[in-house]
């Protein structure tokens, strides 16, 4: 536990000083706030949660995938991880520290989104539940990419297009029926569905998200078993 905590603190300090990662945790809620205040509140025709849905989806699908991948790939590329391992940190402790921190940071951002949306009671609870579950799914996806990438540059090159699919599929789905059908199996689309309309089928959304998490976990375990964290 001591090791996990040390990595958690390291990641917290590092993120504050890493504008490339930090900006992604700030920009999406800020855009959601500005658009909600400026556009939604001055028009009757735009759904109240439209920009929260959109930005929360992009945050989960893009920001978390790319930053998890970048952090892990960078620690391997710069050989920082090797010194942690030499000091007795187990690979799973490292991953728990990094993933745990990003999950917490993501949860804080989720609360901010919730406040911007003025969610209360059951809505807020539903919102936080799907946010945290989908954030966990994105962290697993990002970690898989981070492990497989040879370096940070490769991690960004791979995670960008993957994250685009997960981040933007829900938005495209809202314009195109066919895309919507396909996107329905993605966890980010379920996030979108719930936040758009809290009376939507919650059980189905949770089920799809859990299936996504299971599949991503399997991918992660395969990548981890195959490549480990040793390339660093």
């Amino acid at each position, binding site marked *: 536990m*001591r090791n996990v905590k040390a990595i958690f*603190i*390291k990641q917290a300090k590092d993120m504050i000083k890493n504008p490339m990662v930090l900006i992604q945790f700030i920009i999406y809620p800020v855009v959601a706030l500005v658009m909600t205040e400026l556009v939604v509140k001055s028009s009757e025709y735009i759904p109240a949660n439209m920009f929260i849905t959109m930005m929360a989806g992009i945050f989960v699908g893009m920001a978390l995938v790319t930053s998890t991948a970048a952090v892990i790939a960078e620690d391997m590329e*710069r050989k*920082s*991880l090797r*010194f942690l391992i*030499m000091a*007795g940190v187990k690979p799973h402790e490292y991953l728990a520290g990094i993933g745990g921190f990003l999950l917490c940071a993501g949860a804080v951002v989720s609360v901010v989104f919730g406040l911007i949306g003025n969610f209360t009671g059951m809505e807020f609870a539903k919102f936080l539940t799907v946010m945290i579950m989908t954030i966990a799914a994105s962290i697993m996806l990002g970690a898989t990419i981070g492990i497989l990438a040879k370096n940070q540059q490769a991690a960004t090159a791979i995670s960008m297009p993957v994250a685009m699919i997960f981040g933007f599929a829900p938005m495209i789905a809202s314009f195109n029926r066919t895309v919507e059908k396909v996107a329905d199996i993605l966890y980010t689309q379920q996030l979108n569905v719930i936040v758009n309309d809290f009376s939507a089928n919650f059980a189905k959304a949770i089920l799809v998200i859990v299936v996504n998490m299971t599949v991503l976990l399997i991918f992660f375990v395969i990548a981890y078993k195959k490549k480990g964290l040793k390339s660093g």
Partner: protein
Amino acid sequence: MIKLNNIVKHFGEQVVLSDVTFEVKEREIFGLLGPSGAGKTTIINILTHQLEADSGIHEIGATSFETGLMLDEDGLYVRLNCIENLNIFADIYGIPRKKTLETLKSVGLENAAKKSVGKLSRGMRQRLALARAILHEPKVLFLDEPSSGLDPETARGIHKLIFNLRDKGATVFLTTHNMEEAVKLCNCVALLHKGVIIEQGAPGEICERHNAVKTVPDLESVFIKLTGAELV
């Protein structure tokens, strides 16, 4: 304290270590000498379990907790400052954080404690890497070219520190291609060439054996005599 017996290591077709046997006694400063590409770093990587040898036996009389390591790739967190870098490891080793400042002082970095690693000079960075290696007062210390690329004064500072550590009971295993440094620093050296140890012993004795004692023992000419090769 450290033993290697008939260590063999290939990288693909290339035989890097064909049959390496030597021993390092407790509380000694041991220098592994050889030209660039001889396999010095490879030996450190094998001893510290970062690489597996193809065959042969090796052992260290210390656990990984009692081992300190400084490699040419320092793995420091570039966005964090000196203190923060060391604190991560203080937390992992479970040693009080006030020890980090003490250790920084011992390498002469107390005035740069709050400077981020990315802004340090090469010599300062090297000293910080050394500070991280000695933070937990290891029994065995591996230093891969501890003074390469440093100005004479900084190098002298590092030499003094290595003597201090030995006097406090540490066993130091270092690599270098600087013969002068080896003569000055080491109780015992081994010359690695073409995958085998071609000579070993106290620097003075080796030089006497090969009639290379001028005013100062001249290991360099011994090496050239034995191999016909210039050191890089």
